[in-house]
């Protein structure tokens, strides 16, 4: 999978490049708008990450040109502008997603993967599994190591989200947004409390814990040998 990154902030660009390479992507970086557009038009990419404020050609103009000439490259817009109008404007120019700076890398990664899945028309699975844990999405049942686990609907959704992102760190904000559809900072440690309850049911009675806390970043589902 090849990612095109057009971003003039060197620190942010390095941060994204490093993370994406670790996640197994090939990534090309350009810090100039018009050169970036040329690459997007001529290169063969699966997804583009586009900053809005760029030298020589701004992100929205690049989008306009792209949509005229090469319609199907999925684009994630990066921008420090966070008003509703700015977001709507970005999507109207043909962006597929809009991520507000500053962002966590896990958030960007999740969105890139989601766009790739959408572009490849991946068929929604009816069940998910991770190591000895398996979820039946239709029957809404969970089995770990042959033992059935009872979960509340939201706990199920939380675990499903963790499995879908297995191996990748998901932040509290992402959990809030994807599992509860809440776009605010909960203030108190609500997510921690939720995770702790989920751990009681999923990890407590088993030898290998699967849900891990990554200090400062969030949570990740991984096995012992990961």
């Amino acid at each position, binding site marked *: 999978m090849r990612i095109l990154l057009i971003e003039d902030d060197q620190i942010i660009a390095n941060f994204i490049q490093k993370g994406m390479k670790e996640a197994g992507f090939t990534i090309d970086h350009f810090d100039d708008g018009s050169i970036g557009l040329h690459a997007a038009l001529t290169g063969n990419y699966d997804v583009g990450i586009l900053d809005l404020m760029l030298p020589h050609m701004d992100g929205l103009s690049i989008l306009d040109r792209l949509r005229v000439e090469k319609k199907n490259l999925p684009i994630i817009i990066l921008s420090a502008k966070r008003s509703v109008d700015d977001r709507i404007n970005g999507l109207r120019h043909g962006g597929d997603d809009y991520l507000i700076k500053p962002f966590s890398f896990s958030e960007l990664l999740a969105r890139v993967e989601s766009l790739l899945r959408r572009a490849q028309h991946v068929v929604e699975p009816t069940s998910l599994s991770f190591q000895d844990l398996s979820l039946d999405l239709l029957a809404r049942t969970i089995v770990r190591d042959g033992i059935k686990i009872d979960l509340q609907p939201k706990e199920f959704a939380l675990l499903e989200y963790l499995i879908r992102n297995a191996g990748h760190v998901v932040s509290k904000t992402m959990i809030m947004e994807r599992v509860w559809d809440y776009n605010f900072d*909960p203030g*108190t440690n609500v997510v921690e409390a939720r995770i702790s309850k989920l751990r009681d049911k999923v990890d407590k009675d088993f030898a290998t814990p699967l849900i891990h806390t990554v200090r400062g*970043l969030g949570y990740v589902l991984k096995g012992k040998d990961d």
Partner: protein
Amino acid sequence: MIKLPNTLGFRLTLWYATAFLVCLVAAFLALYLSLNSILNSRMDDDLREDITEFQDWFTEEGLEKVTYEIEREAASSNESEIFLRLYDGRGNLVVASDLSDWEGLDLATLSPQQMDISLSHPIFETIKLSGQDYPVRIISGVIGPHTILQVGETLEKKEEIMELLLKVFAGMFFLGIPLASGIGWLIARTAVKGIEEVSRAVKDLEMGQLDRRVTVRGQGDEIQTLADSFNTMAARIKSLIHEMREMTDNIAHDLRSPLGRIRAMSEVALAESESTKDYKRTAADILKECDRLIHLINTTLDMAEVEAGVTHTIKEPINFSKLIADLCEFYEPVAGEKHIALTVTLEPNCQLSGDKQNLQRMVANLLDNAMKYTSPEGQIRVELTRSPQEFHLTIADTGVGIPLSDQQRVFDRFFRCDHSRAQDGCGLGLSFARSVARAHGGDIFVESESSQGSIFTSILPVTPSTQ
């Protein structure tokens, strides 16, 4: 003060003077014309009386008496002012008073028109004689069979009165120009003075003199109203700027503290960290501080957006009961951890239209606030009721409560009670909640008793948002 012709003062003066002079001319014209007409009709009455008198003499005492009276009448007045002439039936002069002063009066015979008169209707004429400065008023009337009397009187006296009047008026007119301008200028000055005072004050305010006020001694007139409005506005600007400074100070403080911590942590890490683990811990702490900063900035901006106007917020139909129930369910584990009894009583299916995300944040902030300040084993009651006009959301806790002196200020941005400083948070939660309630046409109130707990009530109107 009024130097340029293009000032309001100058225009007012001009208008006043013009209006004054127009009125003066109109008044004079009325006086002149009515006096002229009165004098004319009085003279005609006199002349008509003469004819009647002579008619009587002719009837009673005959022609001799008439001839005698003609001489006497002319002599008794002044021969240059009046003349009398008597004609026979064919229009020939019979007798006349002394006509030596009446040069140009050469009518020996009467004109056919003058002949054609009846007893009751004498005819009047005004003629200009070449030897006279003033016109002459002449009456021709029948005083007996075949006898016509003609009396002529100069208009000199009347014309002199009119001329005098005209002179007096001209004097008044030319005297009136400076007088009217002067009065006009005084009036304009009085009116404009207040405006100029306000205008100077605006300039001073613009230069940064926020304490500038206008003192206008008026009795509730427009200038006074203007001055009062200006003073109110200046006071408002002052308080806004004061608020803004305070807020900037607060933001700066709230930005500086996490930045200070980040800086300190980085320094310590560079100086002392030995293992990757140490660095990782520092990086995680820095991330936490960064998230706090981002949250602070975002909330400040979101609040500004909410306060900028309801028109900007996206409205959609919302089941408020469900929204609250979901959030209570969301916060339930937190209550469970602290062994807080969370009681939720909601009137079902309360529909309103509004910004869903912001309303969620409003309720979440209130719940979060209650969770934070309720000690373990405490209670939180969440209640939603509806009246025909309003939804009442009450969130009551058995927490530490808010001292009376702070109750008014808990909704202020960045305000934190002393006991809350230890808690996480940026001091924006309640003020954001109130901004959202207000943007939806409602409000939030607090009742609290120290160490007894607090009750926050959010009131949202059923209409117009449910339309």
